[in-house]
């Protein structure tokens, strides 16, 4: 019997959660492009070198821009310094959080875990809940009622979207969760994906985060200056915009409730600077299909799988020429989405069609 969809319920404990389970969309088997085991093994090889190099450059950018910001504080020269600092801190920490969270950035596990904890703090995401949230995102990518990381639910809330460029809704929401976790409580949705044995870590880390922010705020009050908060806290707001520009290209406007990443993820070609800041997450279809392949091998994986993939977007401009009109149209027509076209060389899409 066809399911009549009106307003979708994007919560993880609502009507669409039940529908997703009934339709076999929860924890389902996904399409995977064919690739030889031998070649995949080569691509999956972990290395410390690229991530150590990139992390040193990343840290150097933070230190140099932060120092120049301090030295020029009180002049207009401080503005470009903190623009750079903000983007590195508040935007590119997202990709570091992401790659280290998968433990694919480095070969050495403690390096991944250390970067993950630091980047989680920087991007204002509690490390434990967000690891589990992202795990669910990979299990049930853009499955309504299952995926906690659907950035643009339909119909899109344009005001929320605009505010997201400066995290103006996300930060209060995450702060509320942090406070709740400090008191040893989870939200009902979090209880669906954070196992019991991990919950004490959630509460412990939330208390550490709050203490660090309290120290930064106290320092700012004592010296009568917002300068300390320009380094810790505020970059999450003034530096978030590039994270959103990159992040929206991943799934916005594409199909919901399909079991084929070729239909609900975008691969977007980017210049080397953007790929450094985004740590190659522009190869997003490839990442979702083979999350074991480290960021530095995604370009090669892309070349390998191209014939079985939709045409990639030639830059952010081309991606946004699709995303913006689609998002605007979805405000009035929430069932509309972009149907990705597969080339003649590609394997056909599995039978399940989006609702």
């Amino acid at each position, binding site marked *: 019997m066809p399911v009549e969809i009106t307003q979708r319920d994007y919560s993880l404990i609502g009507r669409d959660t039940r529908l997703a389970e009934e339709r076999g969309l929860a*924890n389902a088997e996904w399409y995977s492009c064919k690739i030889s*085991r*031998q070649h995949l*093994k080569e691509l*999956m090889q*972990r290395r410390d070198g690229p991530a150590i190099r990139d992390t040193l450059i990343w840290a150097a950018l933070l230190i140099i821009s932060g120092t120049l910001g301090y030295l020029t504080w009180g002049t207009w020269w401080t503005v470009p310094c903190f623009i750079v600092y903000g983007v590195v801190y508040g935007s590119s920490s997202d990709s570091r959080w992401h790659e280290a969270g*998968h*433990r*694919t950035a480095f*070969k050495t*596990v403690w390096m991944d875990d250390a970067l993950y904890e630091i980047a989680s703090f920087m991007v204002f995401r509690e490390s*434990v809940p967000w*690891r*589990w949230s992202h*795990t669910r995102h*990979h*299990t049930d990518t853009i499955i309504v009622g299952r995926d906690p990381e659907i950035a643009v639910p339909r119909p899109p809330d344009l005001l929320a979207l605009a505010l997201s460029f400066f995290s103006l809704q996300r930060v209060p929401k995450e702060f509320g969760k942090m406070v709740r976790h400090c008191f040893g409580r989870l939200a009902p949705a979090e209880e669906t994906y954070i*196992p019991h*044995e*991990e919950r004490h870590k959630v509460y412990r880390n939330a208390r550490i985060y709050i203490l660090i922010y309290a120290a930064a705020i106290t320092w700012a009050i004592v010296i009568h200056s917002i300068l300390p908060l320009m380094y810790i806290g505020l970059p999450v707001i003034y530096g978030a915009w590039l994270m959103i520009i990159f992040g929206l290209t991943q799934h916005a406007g594409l199909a919901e409730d399909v079991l084929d990443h070729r239909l609900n993820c975008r691969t977007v070609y980017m210049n080397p600077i953007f790929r450094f800041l985004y740590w190659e997450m522009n190869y997003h279809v490839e990442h979702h299909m*083979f*999350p*074991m392949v480290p960021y530095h091998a995604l370009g090669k994986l892309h070349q390998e799988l191209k014939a079985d993939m939709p045409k990639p977007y030639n830059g952010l401009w081309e991606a946004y020429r699709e995303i913006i009109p689609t998002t605007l149209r979805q405000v009035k027509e929430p069932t509309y989405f972009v149907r990705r076209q597969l080339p003649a060389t590609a394997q056909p899409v599995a039978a399940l069609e989006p609702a």
Partner: protein
Amino acid sequence: MTDPWIEVCATGDIEKEDLIRFDLDARTFAIYRTADDRYYATDGLCTHAEVHLAGGFVMDHIIECPKHNGRFDFTTGRAQGAPACVDLRTYPVKVEAGKVFLNPGLPGD
């Protein structure tokens, strides 16, 4: 008494530092070969999301799940941290005359 050992494959059927999936009735196993030609066996599904480990990646004595990157030490079955929190069950393996044999034990063992 029934021989508890089940023939899985020839030793050369598993690449070095790799694994294969082995199904036996309703059960599924992962059979591993290390770089120095030692063989191991565990349950075939990740304890986190029940994904077949056979598509995963072997690094030394670690198997990484292909779906969520959960890791296990396949020599002991021990989970190596989130999202892998529950250990894998391991099974005895032996090599005789160029063949790999598995002792799957009894369900619930």
